[in-house]
């Protein structure tokens, strides 16, 4: 099992930027009023932020980072690592992290690379960045996690369009000897890769005229091979099968229990999935914060966004024991147990 224990890292700051543009699921007229109401109630999403044409994940992350660096009063020259986790990068080539390194005027001594992961991306990003930092050679790092999922969701696909929202986040990480170690449990099952995928445009199925043809797949689901496909039942059963054992194994591996955790922050998949997971773990609602209602499923950035919109004050003021758990496209999932202490969190920004 991929249990990682990583010492000496702390979250110094956390920030997010969302597009100013809002869409209401109550106005999603592709489906009937009754179906809309059932969708809003069960999926738990009322409003989503949608990036206008030309705005990218990197744009949102850069705005968040500028503000965070100002509030942290960090010297840019001291940032030696930039990890950008997204499935909506600026270009197919080159790596978005390189472009962002320059936009932020970071030093040429800075390591920068992308990780292509979606829903599980925050936990994986924390693991990748902290692993590189733990020796102490890198003192400060930026982890950007975000997605503009609205680009790939077809309006005429009720299984994806009303679910996803756009956001870019940044987490400032710092090497600090005296912090308690982080514990990760990371897992993968690529046999389920078809449950969430975009068929064409990569090297396997090159983009062609056929890629753009919109086809009716089933009632209320029309999409092209460049749109995101989501097999709801597969994803649902995957989440209910894997997430709880992943968390329980992490807890028993580290000798911890859910009672010792202040909050369990889940990836915001949808309300039905998250509430079922919460009930399976017998956790009271107060311990499981949400950001779904106002922002939708925000892919890899849903965990940091939820911390910012639901736990901001507490995270700024006191020490918290957090369990973060994220799961989805890949299929890829993981959880991390970590302590935060007086994190710098600017107010949620809009672009």
């Amino acid at each position, binding site marked *: 099992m991929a249990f990682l224990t990583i010492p000496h890292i702390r979250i110094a700051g956390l920030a997010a930027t969302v597009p100013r543009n809002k869409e209401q699921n109550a106005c999603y007229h592709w489906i009937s009023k*009754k*179906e809309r109401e*059932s*969708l809003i109630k*069960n*999926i738990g999403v009322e409003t989503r932020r949608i990036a206008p044409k030309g705005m990218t994940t990197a744009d949102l992350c850069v705005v968040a980072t500028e503000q965070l660096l100002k509030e942290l009063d960090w010297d840019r020259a001291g940032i030696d690592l930039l990890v950008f986790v997204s499935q909506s990068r600026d270009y197919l080539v080159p790596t978005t992290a390189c472009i962002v390194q320059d936009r932020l005027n970071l030093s040429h001594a800075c390591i920068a690379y992308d990780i292509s992961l979606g829903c599980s991306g925050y936990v994986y990003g924390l693991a990748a960045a902290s692993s590189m930092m733990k020796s102490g050679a890198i003192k400060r790092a930026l982890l950007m996690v975000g997605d503009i999922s609205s680009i790939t969701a077809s309006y005429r696909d009720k*299984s994806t369009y009303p679910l996803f929202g756009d956001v870019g986040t940044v987490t400032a990480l710092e090497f600090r000897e005296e912090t308690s170690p982080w514990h990760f449990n990371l897992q993968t099952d690529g046999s389920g890769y078809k449950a969430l995928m975009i068929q064409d445009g990569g090297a396997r199925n090159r983009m062609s005229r056929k890629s753009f043809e919109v086809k009716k797949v089933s*009632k*209320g689901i029309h999409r092209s091979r460049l749109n995101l496909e989501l*097999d*709801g*039942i*597969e994803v*649902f*059963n995957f989440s*209910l*099968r894997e997430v709880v054992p992943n968390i329980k194994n992490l807890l028993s591996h580290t000798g911890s229990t859910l009672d010792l955790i202040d909050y369990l922050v889940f990836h915001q998949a949808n309300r*039905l*999935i998250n*509430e*079922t997971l919460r*009930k*399976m773990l017998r956790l009271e609602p107060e311990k499981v914060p949400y950001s779904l209602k106002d922002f939708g499923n925000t892919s890899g950035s849903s965990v940091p966004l939820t911390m910012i919109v639901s736990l901001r004050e507490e995270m700024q003021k006191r020490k918290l024991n957090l369990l973060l758990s994220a799961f989805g496209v890949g299929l890829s999932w993981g959880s991390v147990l970590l302590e935060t202490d007086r994190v710098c969190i600017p107010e949620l920004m809009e672009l």
Partner: protein
Amino acid sequence: MNIETFIKQIEDEFDDLKPGALKPETPFREKFEWNSINALILIAMVKTEYDVTITADDLIKSKTLQDIYYIIESRIQK
């Protein structure tokens, strides 16, 4: 478990259904306005109450609530 309890649990889960609306032989697709969300609600309820996973394939093969009940019964860990 018994089928009466199972049916009551379904009736509780779906706002549209009045108590007594469902029978074991009820073809569930006709009684519910069957869509993917209702499928997820049913799957979530079965997982929470019985710790049993119902797949898309199970739903396709099932016609009545009795059929689903048998699937659950056969998978409950004894």
